[in-house]
């Protein structure tokens, strides 16, 4: 079973998304801010990180940059979740180091497809 690290500060979104992912057979680990996200990424060795871009303490942009530079986490696929929906935002998210991104409100089927493609791409 694949493990997903979900870094999301909004309680409702966190609860909702983790439950929906769990129903689909993923194991979900939760972090509530950027700092905790970095820590848990190193500790729990997830297969994929879902990173909300606007986070307290350390925001998603910075957290992603650090993940992608740190030795033990730079291989982790990171999928950014953002409420900014313009094409220019996409560029920013990808520039920060995310491998993919999804805009809120989440379209679950699309998200799952992206997750699967990132997971199967690992190692390639």
């Amino acid at each position, binding site marked *: 079973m694949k493990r997903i690290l979900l870094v999301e500060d*909004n309680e409702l*979104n966190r609860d909702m998304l983790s439950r929906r992912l769990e129903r689909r057979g993923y194991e979900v680990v939760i972090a509530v801010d950027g700092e905790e996200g970095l820590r848990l990424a190193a500790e729990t060795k997830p297969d994929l990180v879902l990173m909300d871009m606007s986070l307290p303490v350390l925001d998603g942009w910075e957290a992603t940059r650090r993940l992608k530079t740190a030795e033990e986490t730079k291989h982790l696929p990171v999928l950014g979740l953002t409420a900014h929906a313009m094409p*220019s935002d996409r560029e920013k998210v990808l520039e920060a180091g995310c491998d993919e991104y999804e805009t*809120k409100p989440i379209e679950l089927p699309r998200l799952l497809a992206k997750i699967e493609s990132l997971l199967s791409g690992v190692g390639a």
Partner: protein
Amino acid sequence: MHGDGGSAEQDRAARALVAYLRQEIEAPAAAIAGFLEIVEEDARRYRLPHCLPDLARMKRAAAALRELVRKVVEQRWRSWDAETERDAALARLRHDLRTPLNAIKGYAELLIEEGQERGSEALLHDLRKIVESAARLLAQVDGMLVAIGLEPQQPSPEAALSPEPVLQALRAIPPLKRDGEAPPQFSSRILVVDDNDSSRDLLSRHLTHAGHQVATASDGPAALEHAAIHAPDLVLLDIMMPGMSGFEVLCRLKADRRTAGIPVVMISALDEIDSVVRCIEAGAEDFLAKDFNPVLLRARVDSALEKKRMRDREALMLEELRAEKERSESLLLNVLPGNVVTRLRSGETLIADRFHAVTILFCDLVDFTPLAARLPPQETVRLLGGIFSALDELGTELRLERIKTIGDAYMVAGGLPGSREDHASAVAEFALRAAETIAGIGRSAGHELAARMGLHTGPVVAGVIGTRKFAYDVWGDTVNTASRMESSGVPGRIHVSAAARHALGDAYLFEPRGPVAIKGKGLMETYFLLGRA
């Protein structure tokens, strides 16, 4: 915006934006909250408690959404000095809305997924509605921002958003009411008929929120009963119902006199157009799609209610008109006898008839003039008025015709406008009772009042004299003689001519007076009427 090119223009633009936001953003946000309540009720009703925690979470998200929307709508759009400030605020709005929308949509979908295993169709249906509403809201937000020209990528500052295109786009929005959710001017009573609980509840909520009083019925018989008793101002009627169909309910409503005037708006699914057509032909005012837009619902309801109000006003006015006509009629009848009015109405322009046997009485109050001089004017009028009213009543009772009053003199006739055998005795009765009445009124007013009365029988001409101020009057020698009887009479006594005595016969007692010189007639044998035999 810089420049004072048109502060009124800016105001208008700002107001238009607020109104647009209210309509396009606030309304769907309210709809989401509305559906959530219904879903919660459904969850309780169908005993699906596992939904409740998630529904509670959704409600929190919906509350956050509405709060956000409210803040945006109440934003002082004019307060910014730069377009960039405003644009940034709009971008922020778009961003911020997505978080609660994400939660709402997500939980709804989660519940649908879980619900498909063990939920109820109604609940799933409403959850899907929530997802739709969230999607719609999102589309509105995006669409709005596109409409006012907000582009994320500006290649150069010159091509940056200038106020002109924004204003143009806003000008295209027709000026809406300042408060898009203003309550209707009249709160109406609406009956919602639908067998589906959720649909009924949702409609009911929208209408209640718009300020109306809503009653509901879940089947045809209940609806018919309610409508007959309570006569609502409008009925919203679902076409597809088990048992008695909406069409049948409509037909029965229109067939019952008590409910035929109530406007009916049918509620239908979009693939039932044929049924809708049948209903409209059967008397329904309008129809509304089941998946209705709240703004459209209000428009249709307000329109149907306005029509009914106008019809009611019209009926009221016609009723008032009728009452007014009746009043004029009765006023006219006070002046002219009924059959004379009829003849005038049917086109006769000259009313003049000869009557062969009529008895005329003149009644004159003795020494009223000096009395009137002593009394204050109101007192005089009250006294005289009281006497004349009493005499009028007497005349009505005895079916005599009051011809006129001249000062303090009263003239009455028997035997017209319709001839009668007992004209003389009727007038004699009048005379006797009038004497008592006058004395009585005088006593209670503290005065000694008496009348001189003169009575004569003979032929007269009677008719309507005058074109603007009508009067029904009598002429002829008989009238003059009756007048002479009075003027040559004695206070407190009833002076009658030989002809009158002859007409009265043995039923009455007389005292001969002896020959009296009557101006224009010479000597006449006259009598005093004493009483009944």
